[in-house]
């Protein structure tokens, strides 16, 4: 069975200057992302699996679908490794 991905509470996505960062207000954990990474973060609401997030983004941006299929799982792996999202 495929797990869905959910953002951990308390982590926040914010823009500062020209950068997008996901951070925890009291821990030192943070991760800088590009606009695709920010979209992935927003889609980690606990209702979609990694595969579904990839499919959704590839559908919205068909011209970048190859890159999306390569980079989105990597972004989710990084988020998981930093404890910012969890499998449900």
């Amino acid at each position, binding site marked *: 069975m495929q797990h869905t991905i959910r953002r951990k509470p308390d982590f926040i996505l914010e823009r*500062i*200057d020209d950068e997008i960062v996901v*951070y925890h207000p009291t821990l030192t954990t*943070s991760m800088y992302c590009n606009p695709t990474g920010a979209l992935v973060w927003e889609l980690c609401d606990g209702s979609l699996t990694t595969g579904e997030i990839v499919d959704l983004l590839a559908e919205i941006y068909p011209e970048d679908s190859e890159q999306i299929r390569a980079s989105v799982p990597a972004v989710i792996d990084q988020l998981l490794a930093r404890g910012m999202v969890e499998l449900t």
Partner: protein
Amino acid sequence: MIRTILGLCARDRGNESMYVLLGQHLHELSRRQTSWEPLVHSAEHHGLAPLLYKHLKQLAIGIPLHPRRQLQSLTLRSRHANAIRNIATAEIARALAEERINLVLAKGIALCNLVYSEPGLRPMRDIDLLVADADTARTAALLADLGYRSEERHDIPDDYYHLVPMTRSIDGMTITVEVHRNLLPYHRQYPPWPLARSLDNGWDFSIDDVPVRTLALEDMLFHVALHGLQAPLTYEPFRFIHVADVVSLVENHLEEIDWQVVQTLFPAGINLLTCLHWLTPWSESVFMKLGLEPGRRPWGVGQPYSGWPLHRFRNVRFRQVPEFARNTLLPSLWWLRLYYGRGPGRPSMRARWIDHPRLLLQWLKAYALHYIRGKRWA
């Protein structure tokens, strides 16, 4: 060089002279290929990371990636933390108003909202509330109703100038509130400062649309100087954020502050402000309004006190004794003028040869009395 850069950035709004100097020092930092890490760590220690980042951005210099991200991260955390503290403060102020408990906000929570161009620029540890002594118990009960809890095990005596800090977790962040019956610790160097002193002439503003009151601007200036720059030697250590509080308050409220009241309340104030010019140059408007005359640059600018009783003899190694003695007996002239509020020339000699030895003797006497009375050394 790090202290010089931090000193220059210890203000909300920059000015041309300050940015010229900052640019020169940053150029020197790059030329020497000095690591930025110590600068970032010191800025964090001094509560100055958001201001440092603000001024570096203003100067549009290329900050290396890692320190830039560290500063961004500290800025975001401070912004987020203060946004939550504002929500918490508004909730507390509303609850106290409903119970007709008079309240004056003090220190960081007032400064970040009134003195800085955005609240996140002024990191703080807790929310300080000043209430009447008779209302402290009711205030604590109200805070308990709002979900704040105090440590059951603590060593704060019942007659201390503030109650045991109360904490509550909001959105994963621990918010700490200190309820004061007196704004400053009870110490011979400090005037008594109960609520009655500041309630009627306080400065009104609002946080999240909730009306609140803080100290009058003149009182605020007096208080931040006493608390941050002229505290008893064993109290609050020197941090550049206290410089930023004073400088930003003066620069951002220059025309609203009644300088005659300041002169009466705090005769040494102008001398203290003059000393800060050597850390971060005042704007032309401050010079013109206050008629500051900095004179010759004193030695040891930015070097705070580092002798006894701030540091204890028992922690000093044998070979450090000469340096420790020098730091105790001959601190920097800049610090002497700042701490004792003395002007240049003969008054600064008075600080060195009369004020400072006299203060050290008072501390010796206080410690000797403790010893004789059989109490533990403080």
